[in-house]
């Protein structure tokens, strides 16, 4: 759907900022793709390159087969109409009502009055704002404004929706409801969604794949569950530490005990693997820390345990766990 080929972007100025460094990225169709990184990592620059709000200095950006960086102004406007975008600060027109805001892209597309009326009606009911049709943005809450933003972005039936920190200005509860709406839209309309965020929880809740960006470099890309359970880059590990409490420091109660961190994914979280292991190998297990969570639909769990017993039995138990698809890290 979206291909980045050797994309570079620098900002000249007193201190030149190299915001994107040789980015190669392939964003698949129909999925929710997350891009995470700290402030200043280059996330906004990356997503703004997709619709050429930011022009790359070097490299190619291809969206649905169209080479974006070589279009002239008129061709670019045509392509932009096929890409929806929502913003952290909503960017609604204060002079227009909810109706007028959603109608705006339809007016640009040259839709007739009746067509606009019908489409806007459908869109407000999709985002759950039917009763706010004639309200002005100043009369809406942040969450409602973002719903208008989403409806507006979807008005011209784009195949791609770009979200730059779409939930960063919202409280946690509103964030969840907006994310749920985005997921519904992704499923209902088979729309590709690119989400920029600095919040791990956003990635965890709705993304299928994630790219990690740091200092303008793409650190790693992969399915969320893989990146979260088996991070390859130091940057990702650092970001995950706080979030998954993987840096939880525990000491075994006895020096001879073995400290293990177990990671379970998907079906494994349903199986009574630990109790089976205890029975099979006659070991004592002490649970020091644990959490069970969900990555979009995939359940995911992490346990910090210590094993006490004879060395060979412990070795066998670890092999047993690994054979059952549990990721085992020996911490001492």
């Amino acid at each position, binding site marked *: 759907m979206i291909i980045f080929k050797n994309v570079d972007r620098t900002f000249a100025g007193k201190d030149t900022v190299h915001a994107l460094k040789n980015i190669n990225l392939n964003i698949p169709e129909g999925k929710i793709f997350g891009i995470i990184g700290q402030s200043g990592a280059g996330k906004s620059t990356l997503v703004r390159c997709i619709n050429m709000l930011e022009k790359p200095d070097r490299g190619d950006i291809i969206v649905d087969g169209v080479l974006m960086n070589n279009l002239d102004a008129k061709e670019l406007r045509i392509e932009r109409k096929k890409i929806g975008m929502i913003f952290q*600060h909503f960017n609604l027109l204060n002079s227009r009502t909810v109706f007028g805001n959603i109608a705006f892209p339809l007016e640009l597309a040259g839709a007739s009055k009746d067509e606009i009326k019908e489409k806007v009606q459908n869109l407000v009911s999709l985002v759950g704002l039917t009763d706010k049709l004639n309200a002005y943005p100043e009369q809406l809450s942040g969450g409602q404004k973002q719903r208008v933003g989403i409806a507006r972005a979807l008005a011209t039936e784009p195949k791609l929706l770009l979200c730059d920190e779409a939930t960063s200005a919202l409280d946690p509860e509103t964030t969840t409801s907006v994310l749920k709406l985005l997921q519904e839209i992704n499923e209902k309309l088979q729309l590709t969604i690119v989400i920029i965020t600095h919040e791990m929880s956003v990635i965890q809740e709705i993304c299928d794949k994630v790219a990690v960006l740091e200092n303008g470099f793409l650190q790693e890309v992969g399915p969320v569950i893989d990146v979260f359970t088996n991070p390859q880059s130091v940057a990702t590990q650092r970001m995950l530490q706080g979030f998954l409490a993987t840096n939880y420091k525990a000491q075994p109660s006895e020096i001879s005990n073995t400290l293990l961190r177990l990671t379970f994914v998907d079906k494994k979280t349903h199986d009574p693997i630990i109790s089976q292991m205890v029975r099979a190998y006659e070991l004592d297990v002490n649970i020091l820390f644990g959490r069970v969570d969900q990555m979009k639909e995939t359940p995911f769990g992490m346990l910090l345990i210590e094993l006490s017993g004879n060395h060979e039995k412990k070795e066998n138990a670890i092999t047993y766990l690994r054979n059952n698809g549990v990721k085992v890290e020996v911490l001492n």
Partner: protein
Amino acid sequence: MLWDATLETLFMVSSATVLATIIGLPLGILLATTEENHILEQIVLNKALGAIVNLGRSVPFIILMVAIIPFTRKIVGTSIGTTAAIVPLTVAAIPFVARLVEGALKEVDPGVIEAAESMGASPPEIIYKVLIPEALPALVLAVTLTAVNLIGYSAMAGAIGGGGLGDLAIRFGYQRFRGDVMIQTVVILIILVQGIQMVGDKIAHKLYHKN
């Protein structure tokens, strides 16, 4: 007498306000949009326009009025009278309107302009559908301020034979020692200014939808 003079003043001020807005508005739009990083970035044009506008604003009205007498004569056929006074009033107000419009348009949230760009809006569409509607309350206040200023200028124009309340105040109030006429004209001028400002504020407030 007083009534006729008031009508003359209103005629001069409203004509000059309308004409100056018609010319100053596009000029202000150009000033705002040709700036660096704006939708019609044209830095050289922007600097040149800015310089011309500044020049226009730095000439005192009294001097401008006299200096453009040949131009006024060409357009109106005479340089004396109420109609003739409209020309210097308009010329003086154009750069003023242009700067106010520029300021009003620059207040529009860049994020909103960017959102329109991301939806594939062309520069004219952004001007007509985003910049002007979003800045409309500020634009109404700009026109109001222009009209109020022009009342002051029109009194000056009156003093050199332009007609209107200023003319009356000088000829009767000052030269014939009619203190009552002087006071009456001043009171009417105050009422005019207050009235225009009030109407402008009301309209702007009605249009204001920003928190």
